[in-house]
């Protein structure tokens, strides 16, 4: 249908599309409702990870035991998505295709190096999360293509995680947010991922910051140095905050997410 109709929008959870239509901001000629395709509404375990169908609802993923066990960062990060009513209807596919700069899913997926599965009438293709954003709210989707699923490679069992975002009221669009994954070998970090949201047109990974952590124990000074790399983002200027303020907040959120990840690790060590 996407190929057939010009100026069509896909209706998934409708939690972004319907408000825009109510504002008469988006006025598509056609709306294609994909709510009755059970094949893309499942969370499956795969060899090496989890696969989320595009129609998986935020709360479905957030409350899933499988997700809590394999991708705890996602289960936790989703608590920050809007409000419960929105999470009941909104979908991962919708969030990632709409690609609001402040969306949580893109950062959660970027931390895991997720792969997005795109389908058109005649072809399939895979897109790495790092190549998903083509600009402001513009994902790597051609005319007639749709996101149908996302594969998330899982981190080793026992890995640690943190997520922090700053919104003026809980549930508002975040000014900046950070998702962190840390894996420890003994006392040292042997793998790290830091992904920011709210500061650019897509999620931002911090590879320079991540490499500073490898082989190190997580001292306060190191975490502060690592977090400070988050200020190098472009930032967004709007009525809610300046780009400069967002850059500052990105550093604070990165630091809090790192500290959470370390605290979770220490909590485990203490319990053992």
């Amino acid at each position, binding site marked *: 249908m996407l190929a057939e109709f010009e100026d069509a929008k896909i209706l998934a959870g409708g939690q*972004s599309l319907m408000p*825009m239509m109510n504002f*008469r*901001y988006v006025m598509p000629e056609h709306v294609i409702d994909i709510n009755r395709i059970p094949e893309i509404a499942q969370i499956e375990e795969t060899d090496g990870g989890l696969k989320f169908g595009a129609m998986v609802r935020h709360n479905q993923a957030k409350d899933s035991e499988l997700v809590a066990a394999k991708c705890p960062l996602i289960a936790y990060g989703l608590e920050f998505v809007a409000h419960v009513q929105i999470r009941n209807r909104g979908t991962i596919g919708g969030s990632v295709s709409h690609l609001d*700069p402040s969306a949580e899913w893109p950062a959660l997926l970027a931390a895991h190096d997720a792969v997005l599965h795109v389908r058109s009438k005649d072809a399939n293709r895979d897109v790495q999360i790092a190549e998903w954003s083509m*600009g*402001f709210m513009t994902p790597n989707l051609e005319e007639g293509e749709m996101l149908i699923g996302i594969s998330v490679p899982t981190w080793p069992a026992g890995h640690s995680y943190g997520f922090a975002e700053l919104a003026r009221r809980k549930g508002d669009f975040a000014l900046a947010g950070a998702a962190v994954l840390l894996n420890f070998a003994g006392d040292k970090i042997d793998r790290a991922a830091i992904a920011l949201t709210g500061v650019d*047109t897509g999620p931002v990974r911090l590879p320079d910051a991540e490499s500073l952590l490898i082989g190190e124990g997580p001292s306060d000074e190191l975490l502060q140095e690592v977090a400070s790399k988050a200020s190098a983002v472009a930032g967004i200027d709007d009525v809610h905050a300046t780009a400069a303020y967002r850059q500052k907040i990105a550093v604070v959120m990165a630091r809090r997410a790192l500290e959470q990840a370390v605290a979770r690790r220490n909590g485990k060590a203490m319990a053992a």
Partner: protein
Amino acid sequence: MKLENSFEVAAPPAEAWAVLVDVERVAPCVPGASLTEIVDENAYKGSMKVKLGPVSLAFDGEAKFVERDDANFRAHIKAEGREAKGRGGAQADVEFSLVESAEGSAVTIITDLTLNGPVAQYGRSQGIIASVAEEMVTRFADCLRDKVLTQNDGAAVSPPPTGATTEQNTSASGIGILFGALKRWFKNLFGGGS
């Protein structure tokens, strides 16, 4: 908001202008724009499609030369458009200039862009309008430099029939209608009366 783009081409000014005149070469740089009416030698009507994230906008409007300095390769164009579904409007003040440079010619495009109405007010896009506009002008300039001004094989210039439309099919960039105009201007420069 003010946007500035500049680029250089390996051709002397007069030659660079001559290529800019060739609408068939310049037209592909302006996807989404169509020239619908040539009002007179200085004024044009056209339409433009722009995709700003999730929303597809269609502007109908006019563009006209308010200043021309043929000898010094400068032009000042004012363009104004209204969104077809009532979602607001756009005004652009564009200054084109071309000067001789070490490489050949240096083209500068300074755009002063104002959006009003719902398109400007939608909360999620406020911070991004400037970068979308910037990207549009950059793409246009890149296309001019990489595709148009590097193919200087002296192809013949064909005049635009009055009232003809040049229809492009893809997204973004609205400064395209100005190129139909530029072309006609240069036709006057080199061949027609003044």
